Every structure is written in C-alpha cells, then in structure tokens.
C-alpha cells in the first residue's frame, strides 16, 4: 500500500501530470484563434484599419480643403500636374479630400445606425420570439404596421421637429432599419426556444431573462452578425438616398453615397467622380463582408474542426 512518503517514480510522474500551468481557454478565446486563422478576415481588418486611418488623418495631410473651390480646375480628371491627384468635381473641389471626409460620414453612419438597429432589433425580436403567444403577436403586428409606413415620413418629421443634426440622421436611419433584424431574430428565437438545453435551463429554474441572455442570444450571434454585415451597406445606401432628397448630410459635408449618386449622373462626362467614391465604398463594404464572414465562422459553436 502506498503512503504519502516520497516515491521516486510516482512523484515526478505526478508532477508532470499537473495541469495547473496550463491555462484554460474560454469559447471566446477559441473563437479569436479561429478568427486569426482566417486570412481574408485578417487582411480585411488591416485594410479597414488603413481606411480608417486614411479617412481620419488623410484630410489633415492633404493641402486642399474639402470645400475649397478651385476655379481654374473645375471638372478635371485625375492628374499630378493640377495638384488634384484624383481629379475635381463640377465646382472644382478636390475629389480625394472630399472622398476621405465623406468616408468619415459614411463610416459613422454605418457604425452608429447599425448599432442602434442592432440594439433595438435584437432585444425586440428575442423578447417577442421568446415569450411567444399574444405578446409575440402584438409585437409583430407593430412591426408590420411600422414597416408599411413610408419611412420618408418618419425622417421628414424627425428632421423638422428636432432639427437636422447629423447624429439625428444616424439615429433615424437606425430606428427604421431594426425591423428586419427583429423579424429574423424572432424567427430564430422561436426555434431555439424549443431546444433541449433551453428546456434544461428552465427545468433548473434559470430566470427567463438569463435564458435569453446566456443561451439564446449567443446562438443568435451567427445569424445576427451576418445580418449586421448586410445592414451596414444598406444603411450607407439609405443615407445616400436621403442626401439625394435633401434630408441627409448638409453641404459642403458629403458622404460616399451622395458622392456616388452625384457621380452616377455624369458617368460619361466625368467618370472619375463616379469611380473614385465607388471604389472606396465597394472596398469598404467588401471588407465588412469578409470580417463578418470570419466572425461568423469563428463564433459558430458547431464548427468544431
């Protein structure tokens, strides 16, 4: 029979077996590792970071002001000689600096509006789906009603009552876009609700709120994230449409969407006014796509390979 006395073979063996020096890994850390392995997502993240830097610091480094009208060089194509590296628009404003400052607005729109719609949409949809029954019916009815109203009215009303502050535009767009999110989340919640682990949690007496928070919401993440990466371009495009109607950002500020819609008018006579903002816009949206894909692949708990 062994005693607690030192044993020459077992002791070192036991010491080697101890695992206290190995740190555990949470599912989130697993996800992070998976994300890092996804080269496309990583490259996209770098490009987005570069884009952010360009957009934030670029205009400070360029000599042209975004609202400076260079009368000698109206509507000129990109050239090094004129000093306007990416050309000018119809009133002689440098296109590069306008695209960069426009990027600030567009990215802000994407971020803030999506956040707003995310917060509202996910909570609304999860609650409706989880509680089901009459509450769900009423809540979805409301969604139907709001969806059927022409959103432009909401926005006109908001603009006039509260003024045309730029943050308000973001909130207005976000407040309108949550509907799709809510619907999808509600659908997913409805099916998730009846899974075994949720039943088990209920049996254990976990509160409804905690079930939503800890069991349902993380499983919604996959769908939600994909939807978010689809919402961001939608939001940016909605802003461009609003700008076109006179309800978006005020001149001389601009956004990529507004620049693109202006450029599309003069596609043949001044193609650079279309191409430059379109490229920026498309690259950004592509990057969001890859990052979203990467996040979804990384966070999907079933993808354990």
């Amino acid at each position, binding site marked *: 029979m062994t005693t607690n006395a030192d044993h020459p073979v077992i002791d070192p063996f036991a010491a080697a077996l101890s695992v206290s020096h190995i740190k555990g890994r949470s599912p989130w850390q697993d996800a992070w590792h998976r994300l890092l392995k996804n080269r496309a997502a990583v490259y996209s993240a770098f490009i987005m970071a570069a884009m952010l830097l360009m957009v934030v610091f670029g205009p400070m480094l360029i000599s042209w002001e975004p609202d400076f009208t260079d009368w000698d060089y109206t509507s000129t194509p990109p050239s090094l000689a004129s000093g306007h590296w990416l050309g000018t628009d119809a009133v002689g404003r440098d296109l590069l600096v306008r695209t960069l400052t426009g990027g600030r607005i567009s990215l802000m729109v994407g971020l803030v509006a999506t956040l707003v719609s995310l917060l509202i949409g996910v909570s609304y949809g999860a609650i409706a789906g989880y509680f089901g029954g009459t509450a769900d019916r009423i809540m979805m009815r409301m969604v139907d*009603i709001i969806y*059927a*109203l*022409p959103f432009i*009215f909401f926005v006109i*009303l908001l603009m006039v009552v509260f003024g045309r502050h730029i943050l308000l535009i973001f909130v207005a767009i976000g407040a309108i876009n949550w509907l799709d999110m809510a619907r999808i989340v509600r659908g997913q919640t409805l*099916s998730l*609700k009846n899974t075994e682990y949720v039943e088990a949690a209920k049996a254990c007496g976990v509160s409804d709120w905690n079930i939503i928070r800890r069991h349902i919401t993380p499983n919604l993440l996959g769908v939600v994230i994909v939807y978010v990466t*689809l919402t961001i371009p939608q939001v940016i495009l909605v802003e461009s449409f609003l700008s076109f109607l006179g309800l978006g950002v005020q001149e001389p500020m601009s956004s990529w969407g507004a620049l693109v819609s202006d450029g599309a008018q003069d596609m043949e006579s001044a193609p650079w006014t279309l191409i430059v903002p379109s490229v920026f816009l498309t690259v950004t949206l592509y990057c969001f796509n890859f990052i979203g894909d990467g996040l979804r692949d990384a966070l*999907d708990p079933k993808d354990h390979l």
Partner: protein
Amino acid sequence: MARHALWRLLGLIPTLLMLITIAFFLMRVAPGGPFDSEMLLPADIQANLNAKYHLDESLLQQYFRYLSQIAVLDFGPSIQYKDWTVNELIGQGMPVSLTIGLAAMVLAFFMGTVLGITAALRQNTRVDYSLMGVAMLGISIPNFVIAPILILILAVYAGWLPAGGWDWSIASMVLPVVTLSLPVTAYIARLTRGSMIEVMHSNFIRSARAKGLPESVVIRRHVLRPALLPVISFLGPATAGMISGSVIIERVFSIPGLGSYFVQGALNRDYTLVMGVVIFYGVLIILLNFLVDLIYAWLNPKVRYDNKR
C-alpha cells in the same frame, strides 16, 4: 393550424385601423401643405382650394370623413393629379409594380438560393469565393449606378433593349427586373449560404450522414428545410419592399409604378394619394407576412405547436 390562420386574419382589421390612423396624423404633422408653390397664391384661391379638399375642417373631422370614405373603398381624388382619383392611379400603377416586383422576387429567390446552395456545398473553394464575390458586388454597388450603366451599355451603345419606358413587352421588362433583383439576389445568396453552412454543421446532419444516407438525400431532405427558414423569413418584407416599387428603378427607367407615388406624394403633400398607397401597401405586407408565417410554420413544426399555447 387552421385556427392559427383564422386568428391572424381577424387580427387584420385592428392592425389596418392603427396603420391608417398613424399614417393619417403623421402626414398632417409634416410641415408644408399641398398648395405651397413658387407661384403666388392669393388668400381667396387658397381658401377655395382648402374647401374643395375639406382641408379647412378640423383634423378629427377630416379623419372620420376619411374613414367613412375608406369603408366603401373610395380613396378620394388625388390632390396633385387633379384629373384622377386615387383608386384609378393605384389601379394603373399596381399591375406594373406587382409584375416587376414579383418577377424580380422570383428571379432573386431562384438565383439567390441556387448561388447560395452552390457556394455552401463548395464551401471555401474557388467557386464559393467567386460566387460570394459577385453577390457582394450586387450589394455594394447602388442600383442608381448599375441601372444607368446597364442602360448605357445595352440600350444606348448596343441598342438591344429599350432605354427605359414600359409597354408590357418582355424587352422593356428585362432591365428593370434584373436591376431590381440584384441586391435581393445577393442578400438571399449570402443568407442561404450562411444558413446552409450552419445547418450542415449541426448534429442531426452528422447523424444522418453517419447513418449512411447519400449526400444528395441529406441535402434535399434534411438540410434545405431548416436552412431556408431565415430566407423565408426574409422573403416577406423583401417582396413587399420590391412591390411597392423601387423608387430609383422607376425613376431611372421611367416606369409608371407605385414607388414614386410614395415619395412624390410625400414631397408634394398629396395626402389622399399617399394614404391610398400606404393602405394598399399595408394590406399587402400584412397579407404577405401572414403567408410567410404560414409557410414558416409549415416548414418548422416547432413554431406551430408553440404558438398554439
């Protein structure tokens, strides 16, 4: 299931009423009126006009008058298109918008799901990447850029298709339907792909494979149904949105559909026209969502049982 359906249908009426009320009062709160214009308008004439359209009555009076009109399906005269009633305008615009919207939706659904399924089945191969890349293009480039490019190339330079206009010929339908369907195709493709990948990684699929079922059977019978659920959820609002008419498509291709009635009516404060289109649109969405919910419940038994409770 039948009781569920009936209950939903009954729920239509209070919903509609709420919709009408919110829309009505919202419209009136927006500043400016239908008769503001660059031209000078003497007070007498303004008074005449207000009287003609009952805009001089109190808001509540107007509201109840409108409700009684709606009850007999009379949407009133349009304020800006003076020779036409709203019923006539919607009657003329609806077939056009419906045709384009439904055609685009069908196209988007089939193209999108095919693309998405193909990409999901060949996940992380070149096929997957290129398909998703092209799909992304559909979302990243606004349709007011794609539309004029297509018109330029196919109508002006090549002369194969008409440069806009609508005469119910297939040729005039091609460009608008395709352009309208592009972003939705892209959404559906991505959604399908993502959803399929998720389902394909789930346990019951693994067991189906372990049982020895051939891959095609696994996909067809076990993967597709749950994978398409989010897509079906998305279909309802997507179709309704498309049917109401993409304003840009109608503007760029000069299509006489309902979409621009919305925006133009709002901008010109044509109360009756906007109310008419809003109600029509509202009814359509409610019906569509109802249909979608039915299909969803049919596809996903879990939902059915739960809502009965």
